[in-house]
């Protein structure tokens, strides 16, 4: 076997080895990048799982506030709340009117401090309602308080639906 053939074969073999090593180095770098990206995504998944666990609490609070309920269910819950507040504060609910959409006009009569306390009690009611306008009028020794209440409900399309 001639020296030239052996030398060429050796050269070819070294060329192949260098090529393989270079390709292996590239592949190793790519694998390292993939592993790092996978680790980042795993962390994102873990964070996401924590958020998903907290979502149960959010959903239970949404259910507790009747935010996903139908309007009829919300009306029933709101009226029950108003009756409970009126009993607790020794008031009379004299009017409860639905004014379209999610707005209600509620009138209560009694002592002024009690009507004011009733307004404050709405902040712990089972329905998320906000008094936008409040009117107190004194007549015949008692106070008539009219609250314009906006009740919130989550729509199907958007979580912000029905929020003013």
């Amino acid at each position, binding site marked *: 076997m001639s020296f030239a053939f052996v030398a060429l074969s050796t050269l070819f073999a070294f060329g192949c080895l260098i090529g393989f090593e270079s390709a292996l180095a590239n*592949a190793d770098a790519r694998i390292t990048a993939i592993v790092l990206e996978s680790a980042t995504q795993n962390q994102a*998944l873990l964070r996401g799982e924590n958020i998903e666990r907290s979502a149960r609490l959010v959903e239970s609070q949404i259910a507790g506030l009747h935010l996903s309920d139908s309007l009829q269910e919300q009306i029933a819950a709101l009226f029950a709340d108003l009756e409970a507040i009126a009993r607790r504060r020794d008031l009379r609910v004299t009017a409860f009117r639905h004014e379209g959409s999610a707005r209600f006009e509620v009138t209560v009569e009694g002592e002024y401090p009690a009507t004011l306390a009733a307004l*404050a009690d709405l*902040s712990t009611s089972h329905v998320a309602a906000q008094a936008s306008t409040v*009117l107190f009028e004194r007549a015949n020794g008692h106070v008539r308080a009219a609250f314009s209440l906006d009740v919130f409900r989550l729509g199907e399309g958007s979580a912000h639906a029905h929020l003013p």
Partner: protein
Amino acid sequence: MIGVDFRNPGLVERFRSTVAGFVGRARTFRSGLLIIGVLFAFIGLEAVRFGSVLHNMHVLERRRDALRLEVQNMETRIKAIRERRTALLNALARRRSNADLAAKIAAVSDLVSNSMGLTHLRAAPDGFDIEGRGTNLTDIRISLARLESSFDRPATFELRRDEMAPGAVSFHFDIANK
């Protein structure tokens, strides 16, 4: 007739050198073959290693792609969760605002002197509107001064004699939100 005369010394020498040449070439060929064999064995091993690395890389890529998809799906779910949580917090804040409004109204009514009777109090997003009636002008003046000083916004007020109740004065205080 062809024949070999073994008694001829030149011929024996030539035969010996020919055989030695063959043996030498065979040894050289074997050495070369050994070198090339070793080198190609290395190449083979490298090729196997490279193949194994490529296989691992493809497996990892498939896992990464699956993870990417899972993370994308989770991000969509998280977005929905965040929207619902924002809506919930918004609703809770607005429900809590009833207590704040009650406290504000109580503070405003406390500013009015006890000797005066509040007859009308309206709290709305556009501002406060207060009406009352009293007989003591000094109390009315003090109450109006207190009300005016408690708001850093321009207010309007009106005083007029109550024709239905002699000696009584009605007042109307109006303050608009900015």
